[in-house]
C-alpha cells in the first residue's frame, strides 16, 4: 500500500484540474448577460462601467491587449468571444476590409448625434457605419520651458543644432516621416515617392541632432531633464506634466498626427444589443466628459465639451487651436503602399 500517497496526490490533481476544465466549459449560470470588452489597459473610468452594469443588469468583463497588431493577429487566427473592441482607426479600416467587424445599428445609438462633426470630417469612417470614435490623441512636441530658448511650435525645431543629442523622436515610421511631410507642406498620408524621398532627407538631417528614435523611455527622459525636447503622444506628455511642471506641449503649426481609437463590434459578438447599449452609453455627453477627465484623452463628443473642467478645456494639448486642428490628419491604412514608407525608413535607419 506504499503507493497510496502518490495515487492520492495524482487523484487530487485530476479532480482540481477537472474542476477548472468544467468551470471553463460550463460558462456559469445564465442569469446575467455578460458583455466582453477587449481594449487597452486603464481605458475607461471604472465607476462608469459599474454604472452601466447597474443600469443594464449585466456584467462587463474587460480584457486587455497591448498593440493593435497583436490583437489583430489573435482575432484573425480565429479567437472569438469579444463583443466590443477599441482598435486605432487604421486598424479598424483593415478589420473592416477583412469583414471582422459588423455594421452598426444606428437605431440603437441615439447618442451618436453628440459626436463632434468636425472630427468626423477627417475621420476614416465619416458616417460611423461600423465604428464610433472613442478617444482622440495627437502627436506633437514636448519641451522643457526653462532649458529651450526661443521655442517655436514647428517641426523645424529638430534642426536646432544647439539641442543636439538632447532630442528624441518616435521610433515609428509613419509618425516621424509624417512630421517631415508636414514640414514640407505635404499630406502625412502621401504616397508620392518623390515627396517621401524629400521627407526622408529631412529626417536624415534631423537624425544628426537626435539622441535616438524611441517610444517609451522618452517620458522618463524628459521628466528627469535628460532630454530637452521630445516628439511624443499628448496622452503620455500630460501624465509626465503632472510631475514636472517645467514641461510644455505644443502642436507644430504645420499640423501633425491625430489618432483615434474607435469603438467597434466584433463580427462574432454574442451580445450585439448590449454592445450597442455600451457604445451608446459611452457617447452620453455626461459620461463622455467624465471619462475624458479620467483618461486625459479627448472623447470627440461636442456636447460633452462644455461639461469638462476648465483645466481640460484650456489645455492646448487636448483642445487644439482651430487653425492647427485644420492641418492635422488621421493616419490612414495605406495597404500595399506602406512599403514605400518602409523603404524610406530603412534608408533613414541606415544613414550615418
Amino acid at each position, binding site marked *: 500500500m506504499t503507493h497510496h500517497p502518490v495515487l492520492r496526490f495524482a487523484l487530487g490533481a485530476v479532480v482540481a484540474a477537472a474542476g477548472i*476544465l468544467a468551470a471553463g466549459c460550463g460558462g456559469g449560470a445564465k442569469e446575467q448577460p455578460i458583455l466582453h470588452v477587449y481594449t487597452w489597459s486603464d481605458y475607461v473610468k471604472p465607476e462608469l462601467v459599474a454604472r452601466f452594469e447597474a443600469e443594464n443588469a449585466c456584467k462587463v468583463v474587460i480584457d486587455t491587449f*497591448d498593440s493593435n497588431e497583436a490583437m489583430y493577429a489573435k482575432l484573425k487566427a*480565429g479567437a472569438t468571444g469579444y463583443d466590443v473592441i477599441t482598435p486605432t482607426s487604421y486598424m479598424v479600416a483593415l478589420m473592416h476590409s477583412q469583414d471582422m467587424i459588423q455594421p452598426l445599428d444606428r437605431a440603437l445609438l441615439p447618442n451618436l448625434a453628440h459626436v463632434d462633426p468636425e472630427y468626423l470630417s477627417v475621420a476614416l469612417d465619416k458616417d460611423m457605419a461600423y465604428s464610433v470614435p472613442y478617444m482622440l490623441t495627437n502627436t506633437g512636441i514636448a519641451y522643457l520651458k526653462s532649458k529651450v530658448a526661443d521655442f517655436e511650435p514647428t517641426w523645424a525645431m529638430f534642426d536646432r543644432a544647439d539641442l543636439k543629442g538632447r532630442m528624441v523622436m518616435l521610433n515609428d515610421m509613419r509618425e516621424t516621416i509624417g512630421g517631415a511631410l508636414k514640414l514640407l507642406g505635404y499630406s502625412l498620408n502621401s504616397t508620392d515617392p518623390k515627396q517621401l524621398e524629400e521627407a526622408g532627407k529631412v529626417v536624415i538631417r534631423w537624425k544628426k541632432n537626435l539622441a535616438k528614435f524611441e517610444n517609451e523611455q522618452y517620458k*522618463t527622459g524628459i521628466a528627469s531633464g535628460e532630454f530637452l525636447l521630445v516628439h511624443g503622444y499628448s496622452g503620455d506628455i500630460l501624465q509626465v506634466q503632472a510631475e514636472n511642471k517645467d514641461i510644455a506641449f505644443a502642436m507644430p503649426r504645420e499640423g501633425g498626427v491625430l489618432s483615434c481609437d474607435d469603438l467597434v463590434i466584433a463580427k462574432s459578438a454574442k451580445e450585439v444589443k448590449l454592445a450597442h447599449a455600451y457604445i451608446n452609453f459611452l457617447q452620453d455627453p455626461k459620461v463622455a466628459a467624465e471619462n475624458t477627465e479620467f483618461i486625459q484623452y479627448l472623447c470627440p463628443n461636442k456636447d460633452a465639451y462644455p461639461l469638462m473642467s476648465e483645466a481640460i478645456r484650456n489645455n492646448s494639448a487636448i483642445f487644439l487651436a482651430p487653425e492647427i486642428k485644420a492641418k492635422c490628419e488621421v493616419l490612414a491604412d495605406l495597404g500595399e503602399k506602406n512599403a514605400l514608407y518602409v523603404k524610406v525608413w530603412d534608408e533613414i535607419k541606415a544613414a550615418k
Partner: protein
Amino acid sequence: MKRSRFPFVVTGVVLVFFYLPILILVADSFNASRFGGAWRGFSFRWYARLFHEPDIWISARNTLVIAVVVTFLSLILGTTSALALHRFAKSRLQGIHYTLIYTPLVVPEILMGISLLMAFVAAGIKLGMTTIVLAHVTFCISYVALVVLGRLRDLGATGWQATRRVLLPMLAPGLAAAGLIAFTLSVDDFVITFFVAGPGATTLPIRVYSMIKHGATPLINALSTLLLALTFTMVLVSQRLSKSGALEGGQ
C-alpha cells in the same frame, strides 16, 4: 602561491548583472515618482493604490490558479514520460517520444501560440482559462520530463519495484525542482498565453504588458516586488525541504 582573484571578480560582476535590475525595480516601487527617472522621495503610494485595483488582483488570481493546475498536471505527465523514456531507453519508439518531448523547447513561442490557438478554434474549444492551462501544460511537460530524466540517469535505478520503493522518494528533490520550473514558466509566459487566452482570462503578464501603454508602471514595480518576495520565500522553503529530504534519504 596566492589564489587568483579573477574567479571571485567574475562571480561578483555576474551577480551584479543578474540582480541589479531587480534591485532597481524594488527601489523604484518605493519611489514617489511615476516615471522612475529621478528619485522623488520614499513612498508607499503605489502599494496603497495596488490594493484598490481589482483588475490587477483578478489577473493575479487567474495567473496563480493556472500555475497551480499546470504544475500538478505537467508533473504527473512529465514524470511518467521521463519514466518511460528511462525504462525503455533503447527502443525506437522512445526515440521518437524523446524527440516529441524535446521539440517544444526549441519551437519559437509565437509559432506555438498561433498554432495552439488555431487548433483550439478548429476543435471548437471555447477560449478561456482551460485553453491557457492546456497550452502551458504542453510546454511544461517537456521541462519536467527532462529535469526528472536527468535525475533518473543519475540514480540509475530500473524496474517498477525499484521505481516505487526507491525511485519516487529519491526523486522528490527532482520533482520539486521540476514543479518549480513548471510553476515559474506558467506564471511568466506572455506570448503563448496572449494567443490562447479567452475573454475573462487575462493573466498578470498580459495585464502588465498592456499597462505599459496607459497604466502606471510603478504599480507594476510594486506588484513585482510582492511577487519577488513570494518567489524567494518559495525557493527558500523548497530548498529547506529538499535538504531535509536528502538527509532522510541518506540515513
